[in-house]
């Protein structure tokens, strides 16, 4: 697990990829709230919003099936709750849970699949999220695959030796902790030596262009119009 599929997807060059992240986060927020607060006529609304997302996936030149399957990571969790709701005699709520949690996850996935994570975190800073927290998150994401790779190797080695006992697993985790800890020190010294000032500076701070504003407005309006239309017509 060196890189996830999302990481690959986010490096595309479609018009959607080139938009300023803020121009994608705003319609995302509108989408999530519009979906979360909708309680009437869910099936047609769900289909409409789903088609909107599929349009987005196509516009981003991403594999439609792959993205839609990846969005299904929420389904085991919502499926269990939906089953419980169904058995408790509330099938409407069961369908609502599955449909809405899936569409929300797909919408978030579409934004992340068209925006590299470092750029996404930078844009969150411009929206007022504390820089300290985002710097921690930047480091976290940078070293996520390195440390995960190390954990994966340890797991493979343990499996080759015939598996871990509980005590051995704690030992392995402690070693992973110690390695991560010392790696953090090395990383920091190396970065200091290269002039790191304590925060990440993007190569070119992206500005909101007219295209960004147009996209953000159109996408948000499309979501709102869709919901109002579905509720009026029904």
């Amino acid at each position, binding site marked *: 697990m060196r890189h996830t599929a*999302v990481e690959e997807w986010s490096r595309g060059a479609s018009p959607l990829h080139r938009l300023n992240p803020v121009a994608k986060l705003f319609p995302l*927020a*509108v989408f999530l709230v519009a*979906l*979360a*607060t909708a*309680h009437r006529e869910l099936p047609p609304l769900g289909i409409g919003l789903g088609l909107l997302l599929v349009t987005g996936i196509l516009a981003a030149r991403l594999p439609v099936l792959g993205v839609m399957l990846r969005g299904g*990571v*929420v389904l085991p*969790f919502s499926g269990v709750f939906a089953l*419980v*709701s169904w*058995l*408790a005699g509330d099938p409407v*709520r069961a369908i609502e849970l599955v449909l*809405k*949690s899936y569409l*929300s*996850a797909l919408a978030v996935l579409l934004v*992340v699949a068209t925006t590299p994570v470092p750029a*996404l975190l930078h844009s969150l800073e411009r929206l*007022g999220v*504390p820089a*300290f*927290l985002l*710097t*921690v*998150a930047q*480091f*976290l*994401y*940078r*070293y*996520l695959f*390195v*440390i*995960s790779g*190390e*954990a994966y190797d340890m797991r493979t080695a343990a499996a080759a030796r015939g598996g*871990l*006992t*509980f*005590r051995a*697993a*704690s*030992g*392995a*985790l*402690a070693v*992973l*902790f*110690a390695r*991560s*800890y010392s*790696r*953090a020190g090395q*990383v*920091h010294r190396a970065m200091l030596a290269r002039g790191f000032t*304590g925060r990440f500076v993007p190569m070119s701070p992206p500005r909101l262009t007219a295209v960004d504003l147009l996209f953000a407005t159109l996408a948000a309006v499309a979501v709102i119009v869709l*919901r109002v239309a579905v509720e009026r017509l029904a």
Partner: protein
Amino acid sequence: MHIPDNFLSTPVWVALDAISIPAAGLMVRRAGREMEDTRVPLMGVMGAFVFAAQMINFPVGAGTSGHLVGGALLACTLGPVAASVVMTAILAIQALVFQDGGVLALGANVLNMAVVGVLAGYLPYHLWGRGRGRRAAIFAGGALSVLASAVLALAELLISGVRMPGPALSVSLGLFVISALLEGAITMTVVSALEGIQPGFVRQPSTGRSFAMTALGIAAVLLAAGGVVFASTSPDGIEQLAIQAGIHKPLAGYGGGAGLAGIALLYVVCLAAGRVTRKRST
């Protein structure tokens, strides 16, 4: 247990976002003041460690296995404030990049795991981490941290009107207790192993002075304990309460406009609060 979007009703997630954004902001500012610059890469890399630690399985017999959740372990090694910030960063990355937990529900998840979970996990260590009961305190911290987060999440779901008949509720409470004990055992054995490698990894609990920390931790534990008792004795009671408070049934009355306006208001308030405190501190 990461709550996805659309499991919580609108009033619940708006309220929880409103609570946890300032709470996380407070932790971040405290961490920013207390930490030297060298700690920032450390916090990020240890966040990656907690992510990766999920790959190391702890066998618990009968072919099942568990893994570390990490709140209490981070609190014992980095300190509660830094641990809270790291957990917040983890939850944000999980919600955004891995669709593990919702974006609108991020406030709920941050409150459950990064604020209450970490503080509840640190409390026993803070109180008894110096004497003979040290190992027991670390065990209790791990268990308490998972239990508090899980019970809070369950209570939030129930208040939102997610149906949970009696048997399902008992089963989930039972599972919570098992995973809490497992987390306690993992945290305790990993801390002992860490001290074997290098004693400096584990922080000694600070003496006395942080009264606010203790108070917050106790409040977190009480909240969770109250939730357990309430949920186990009267599952219908919560629903009743929700109906009385007008949260759960008249959902049709809530338009998208109200939700959006709520978010916008919340955003402006947080931004303004951030600006004011920043000015005062510089």
